[in-house]
């Protein structure tokens, strides 16, 4: 397959923090328009991997290519949306002011209304962020990651602390965006979300243990539930 079909190519990436191997030689490829789920427990290396995709983590070994550009590359970041785990917003600004700021630093002017409608916050655009509920802040944070219409969307545990109804709506959005061509990498430790991904990567101890569709992973582990598959596959690789 030609390399331009991949939005993300990670090749043998190693990153240590002191003696801890946060990433111990991870390789993965994400196709354009794919929803790729990065599954793993806390501390598995999910966030470090995502941070390496935007150049915030410099790999000691290996290479990271995003949208056909070798990272670190600042210009390619205008086409990447990154939603951090913590709803990173300016609490003293209104919802709309936050969006305007993140649009401007990514070099676009419009798209604010569109992004806010996606997350259902257009009516709250005048609210000061610190007055919003936790779920609204998460949605606002997502809108900030979407506002410049990125080709690649990196979502670090976007549904933590989000109620089930909103979670379902957000996943509908993700899948719709993917159908429209956006590549989405989403990390999670919630298994039921994994079912909605095109492909999954199981990550633990900084290693990618297994990769494939839900059905492939279940077949490989010989079990019917994804949760069991995950446990079985991590045991198998630890042994």
């Amino acid at each position, binding site marked *: 397959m030609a390399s331009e079909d991949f939005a993300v190519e990670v090749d043998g990436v190693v990153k240590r923090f002191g003696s801890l191997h946060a990433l111990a030689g991870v390789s993965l490829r994400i196709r354009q328009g794919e929803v790729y789920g990065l599954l793993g427990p806390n501390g598995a290396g999910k966030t470090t991997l995502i941070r390496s995709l935007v150049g915030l983590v410099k790999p000691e070994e290996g290479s990271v290519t995003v949208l056909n550009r070798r990272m670190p590359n600042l*210009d390619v*970041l205008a086409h990447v949306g990154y939603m951090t785990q913590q709803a*990173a917003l*300016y609490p003293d600004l209104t919802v709309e002011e936050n969006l305007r700021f993140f649009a401007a*630093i*990514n070099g676009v002017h419009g798209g604010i209304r569109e992004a806010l409608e996606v997350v259902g916050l257009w009516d709250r655009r005048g609210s000061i962020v610190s007055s919003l509920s936790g779920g609204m802040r998460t949605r606002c944070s997502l809108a*900030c990651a979407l506002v410049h219409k990125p080709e690649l969307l990196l979502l670090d545990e976007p549904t933590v602390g989000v109620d089930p109804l909103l979670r379902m709506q957000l996943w509908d959005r993700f899948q719709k965006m993917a159908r429209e061509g956006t590549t989405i990498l989403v990390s999670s430790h919630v298994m039921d979300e994994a079912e909605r991904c095109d492909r999954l990567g199981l990550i633990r101890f900084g290693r990618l243990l297994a990769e494939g569709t839900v059905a492939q992973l279940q077949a490989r582990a010989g079990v019917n539930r994804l949760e069991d598959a995950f446990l079985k596959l991590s045991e198998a690789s630890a042994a």
Partner: protein
Amino acid sequence: MSRRRILAITRRLLQQFRHDRRTLALLFGAPLIILALLGYILRGGGDVPAMGVVNLDEGPLGALVASTLESSRTVAASRMSRQEADAKLHAGDLAGYVLLPADFTNRAQQQHAVVLGVELEGTEPALSGTIMQAVGQAFTALASQAGGVRFATQVSYLHGGANFDTLDYFGAAFIGLVVFFLVFVVTTVAFLRERSQGTLERLMASPLRRPEIVLGYMLGFTVLALVQAIEVLAFSLLLLHVHNSGNVGLIFLLEALMAIVAVNLGIFLSMFARTEFQAVQFIPLVIVPQMLLSGIIFPVTTEPGPLQVLSRLLPLTYAVTGMRDIMIKGADLSWSSLQLDLAVVLGFAILVIIAGATTLRRRIA
């Protein structure tokens, strides 16, 4: 009231400090450093103010006063001609000189009352005070020798004068200090908030260049700082009537440069703090030594040698000198001393901008 609940809070507080070594170090280290600095300034045997003695008297009493002054430990007095004394006073090499008139001995012996002239440079009240004290002591010595001589001094000032009050002297220095201090605090905390609320991470994952972040911050806070500088200046000059012999535009220029130094120093130092609490700790470390060493209260020239070197490494020293040159002496851009002050403050500004931008890059990688 439950003793247990109260003690739970107390214990938790002490535990927090145990985990925060830096705060502990500051809490127990900073007072000692500040007091040691103060002790060193005041007792460290620094240079004493230089004064001239112009003795036109040929009798014994003029010589007595002159030699008493020369042997004084609180001033470094040396005899010179009036022309030389005037030249050195204008150059700022003397804090003042005393003029013993030709009829000094005669008048002292016949009228038991003498008047002598004291010419003071006048910019730094501490120096003027030391000289007047030394003159007074010399006359006490004279009185005990010659018996019952009353003396009066006729003091004139090269800069400032009897119509200057304490605020006129300190106002100039404090205008610079206030702007520097507040802008520094606000920037440090604001930039740190960017880090703690996670938005810095987002900025770093955007096409923003590091220098763009630093420059954007600088412009934003500089706008605020300039408005503040205008306010402080207008209040000082129009309502407090702090004396000003110089150009208001020049004062503003110097204030603006100091504000830029403060903004970037704030950005730079906030890289070394993880929490707002830690950032606030930079205040005593950055501000207090500068207050003691920049010549606001204690003249730089009378500090012990090593401290003078340190003083000349601090930006506030140049700002204070520059402010006094403009406001008290009426300096304009043709003065080489003011050119130096402005150049040094500008140099500091560039230095901290670069430091801020490079540290930002390193801390993120």
